[in-house]
């Protein structure tokens, strides 16, 4: 159910925002927008399906504790 909501909300947002970018005919803007939106869509979908996504700050934590503990 939550996953369905995520898909719905993302498709609404993308359909609102993609037209002006498409119209401006800038390929770089389009690629960047789709990459960023795709990444956040995948993370939200995984979260809504109840899958634990590994935290990206764990390596930083290990690095810091190695030097300051």
């Amino acid at each position, binding site marked *: 159910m939550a996953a369905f909501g995520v898909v719905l909300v993302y498709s609404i*947002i993308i359909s609102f*925002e993609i037209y*002006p*970018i498409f119209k401006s005919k*800038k390929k*770089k*803007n389009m690629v*960047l*927008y789709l990459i*960023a*939106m795709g*990444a*956040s869509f995948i*993370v*939200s979908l995984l*979260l809504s399906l109840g899958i*634990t*996504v*590994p*935290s*990206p*700050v764990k390596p*930083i*934590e290990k690095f*810091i*504790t190695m*030097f*300051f503990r």
Partner: protein
Amino acid sequence: MLYEGYRRVLRLNKEIISDKQGICLVTMFILGSTLLLGTGGGIAKKDAWLAIIAGMVYAAPALYIYSRLLSKFHGRDLFDILQLVFGKYLGKIISLLYIWFAFHLGALVERNFSDFTETAVYPDTPVAFPLIFFILLFIWGVKLGIENLGRWSEFYILIVLLLIVTVTITLSLPQLNFNNIRPVFYNGIKPILHSAFLVFSFPFAETVVFMMVFSSLKTKKSSYKIYFTGLIFGSIIVLLVSFRNILIVGADSIARDYFPSYVAVSAIKVGDFIQRLELAVSTVLLLNVFIKVSICLLAVCKGLEKVFELDDYRFLVTPMALLMASLSIIVYPNIMESVKWAFKIWPYYAFFFQAILPLIIFIVAEIKFRKII
């Protein structure tokens, strides 16, 4: 359409913020989530107020470096400065590091906000739900630009001051117990200095993010005025709030609670009718967190604009805001981890971005661009 409208506004008049708006932004940014979480991690115990003063003294040289760089390259932001000083490629790599820093900071502040809503306000609501409505506001605010945020903060800082200074501090006067801060220097100077380092890196030197958005100041002297007046205002309010918390609930309880301000304000009771003032704490938190996350989001989008050489940052705001919210949910499994990060790991990690890198940029810039004053 709406997007085209933003771009037309951008082309017609360059965004400029006045000194007063800048000061309000810096003050609200420093207050940020500090008023809720407290500073110093409870290491200095009764002398936490001394640690805040020492932290302010630590922060002054760092803020001098930030404002010196902004004034030397007037009209440019950190990403332009990096590319000027280190050349195109190294400059872009360091820019990406700073973008990550702003992104991470924004996610942490959102995380503090959702921890607060989950533990104290709405225990049964899913974490993402209050966040969704907040994200819509961030997107709206950041798309309208820094000038709008400046005007917003100029107005709302009055509400913050009214709620903190006149309501909670005045009404808590009957509850104050001055034995809670005596004896001064009981544990010696060492915990105070350690705690001052945490205070330096948690609210004060986080203002390094403003280097990434302040490309629109009025004069060359504005940056000094904005940074130092903001620091003084911000630290006075943090000091007052920390005094109030220690005097009401005592140092041990502050070290134990996740949200000391919330506990301290809930003790206020004047007569039978003025009580349950925790709402004031939540309101102040909401207003300050809005500014803090918006500035971080703006810094991320402006940085991506400079690194990828785009003509406008506004189309990137929505995906970045959503990505930041996702990161804020996956970044820690629970609130204990989040508080541990804020006081045990964040200071050492942020020190690199707040002091070491700016110092390197400052030295190289002073040598390379000797002729620009």
